[in-house]
């Protein structure tokens, strides 16, 4: 039994739209332990993004308790949550969200810029290390507009790892990529998993669930399935089997 990183206790999130109340999350409870690679699946509107925003401390639930790394998030103020995001969470977005006209290394340094306990020398070193670990050691000074989608997502992953977070949250991280590049990114995620990272990966692609250690299914704001995957497929193998493009 590993260390508990995330604990959700009957999380509800209501949105008021005009006179109506939309229940985006209706009592979600689960725990995630250190080192798990969890995919969250569900149809559009099932509450995946709302759940991820809650997990990422961007949103606060209407009711219920959320403990991140043992800390209760629900009662925290805006600034405290910002600091918590900075220290404990790594975000990866579908559309990368890199700063335009900015080098890979500067993009990766960004989270550390908001952490005053990290000096500029250490910041640079950690950014270089993170970029090397995603296989971009030779692209440090490339600007975001000079890179391919796969490279940009690697930079984004490096940015998510640079603060050594307790949990990495990915929202459709392969959604904008072609199959081959998606598998390359998936290989990277599996390697991070093997290194002991805790990963939560939101996707609507059922195939990806086969490469994770656990799959949670959402429907209408409720958990309808939560299965551990005993037969994790190897993304590297799948990648090797893909037909090779000649360009």
């Amino acid at each position: 039994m590993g260390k508990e990183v995330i604990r959700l206790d009957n999380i509800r999130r209501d949105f008021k739209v005009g006179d109506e109340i939309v229940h985006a999350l209706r009592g979600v409870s689960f725990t995630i332990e250190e080192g798990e690679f969890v995919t969250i699946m569900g149809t559009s509107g099932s509450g995946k993004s709302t759940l991820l925003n809650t997990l990422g401390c961007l949103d606060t639930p209407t009711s219920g308790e959320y403990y991140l790394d043992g800390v209760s998030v629900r009662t925290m103020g805006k600034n405290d949550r910002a600091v918590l995001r900075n220290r404990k969470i790594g975000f990866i977005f579908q559309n990368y969200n890199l700063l335009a006209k900015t080098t890979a290394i500067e993009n990766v340094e960004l989270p550390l810029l908001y952490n005053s306990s990290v000096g500029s020398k250490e910041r640079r070193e950690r950014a270089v290390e993170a970029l090397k670990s995603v296989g971009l050691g030779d692209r440090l000074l490339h600007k975001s507009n000079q890179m391919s989608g796969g490279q940009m997502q690697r930079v984004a992953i490096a940015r998510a790892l640079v603060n050594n977070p307790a949990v990495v949250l990915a929202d459709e991280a392969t959604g904008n990529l072609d199959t081959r590049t998606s598998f390359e990114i998936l290989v990277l995620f599996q390697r991070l998993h093997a290194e002991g990272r805790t990963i939560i990966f939101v996707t609507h692609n059922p195939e990806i669930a086969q490469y994770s250690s656990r799959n949670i299914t959402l429907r209408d704001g409720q958990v309808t399935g939560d299965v551990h995957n005993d037969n994790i497929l190897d993304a590297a193998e799948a990648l090797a089997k893909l037909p090779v493009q000649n360009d």
Partner: protein
Amino acid sequence: MIALKALSNNKLRGFLTMLGIIIGVGSVITMLAIGQGSKKSIQAEISEMGSNMIMIMPGSNRMGGVKMSSDDMQSLKIQDYESILEKAAYVQCVSPLVQSSSQAIYGANNTPTSAYGVNADYLEIRQYKISDGEMFTDQDIKTAAKVCIVGATVVSNLFTNGENPLGKTIRFGSIPFRIIGVLESKGYNSMGMDQDDMIIAPYTTVQKRILAITYIQEIVCSALSEEYTDQAIDEITDILRSNHKLKEDASDDFEIRSQEEMSSMMTSTSDLMTTLLAAVAAISLLVGGIGIMNIMYVSVTERTKEIGLRMSIGARGRDILLQFLIESMLLSITGGLIGVLFGIGAAYVVKFLANYPIAIQAWTVLLSFLVCTATGIFFGWYPAKKAANLDPIEAIRYE
């Protein structure tokens, strides 16, 4: 760092935004330099003339509804001068003044100039010095001696061969005068008057031998010091009123002007000018500030997604606020810096082209700089606050 980068990504827009500030600060600096310059030269002028000087002229009071011109007034007499000399405690020096304009002639040379009939104290009052020779004596005044002191311009106009003017006899109108001294040159005053174009002679000589009058045209005095000017004026007023036997309700038949009064009069016009110019400049600074606010709003909207990203990776509201504040301050300070250089340059152009006195004072530069920074903070605040208050979830979804 972040802010600098954001600006350098959009240089042309940054420059255009700064233009308002550049013009604003530039004009403040130039206007103040010109205003201060003329004020300073007026002040220098006045203190050169003696800041404690008091002038008494026959007044233009009304007689039977007919306004008399002061030339026609003959209310000042030698007795008035003597009374002031005797009784006025706050007055240090006093001299009568009679003046005549005519041609001064030496040999084949002649030049139009003025002869001032005064006593020996006049030099002290007007801060003139004798560079060569000596002043006339009380004895010369008593005998209405035909001796004179000449200014440097008169010397150069009459003694074209470089002879020593001392001891030479020149004619002023039809009267021969022996030169016994030469004045130290004072140059031009701020109103363009040549202060060396004059002849000084005993007042009795000018009065009797040139003008053939018994009254005097003016009395000039100096107060003990600048602070005592008002007391001295009161004293003189009392003395003259009793001398002239004026009734309680009659108005003065003389006019007293102090140098202090004249200087404050002259500097107040230049102060007013400076204030007006500065106000115009301040308005352009305001317009520049609004330009900054405008562009900062655009910038915040354009970069909503970036703000959302920064917030989601841990930037707090105040980090975002600071980022945009620094950016707008950078805009205004850079604009201010260029404006200062531009303003100083323009002031020097004015100086060289129009030969106008300018004075660039450290405080005006400092002030415009502070105002600029304040403008940046003030007009950057609302856009920055708007950025800081964005909801990270919505911001990052913004397209």
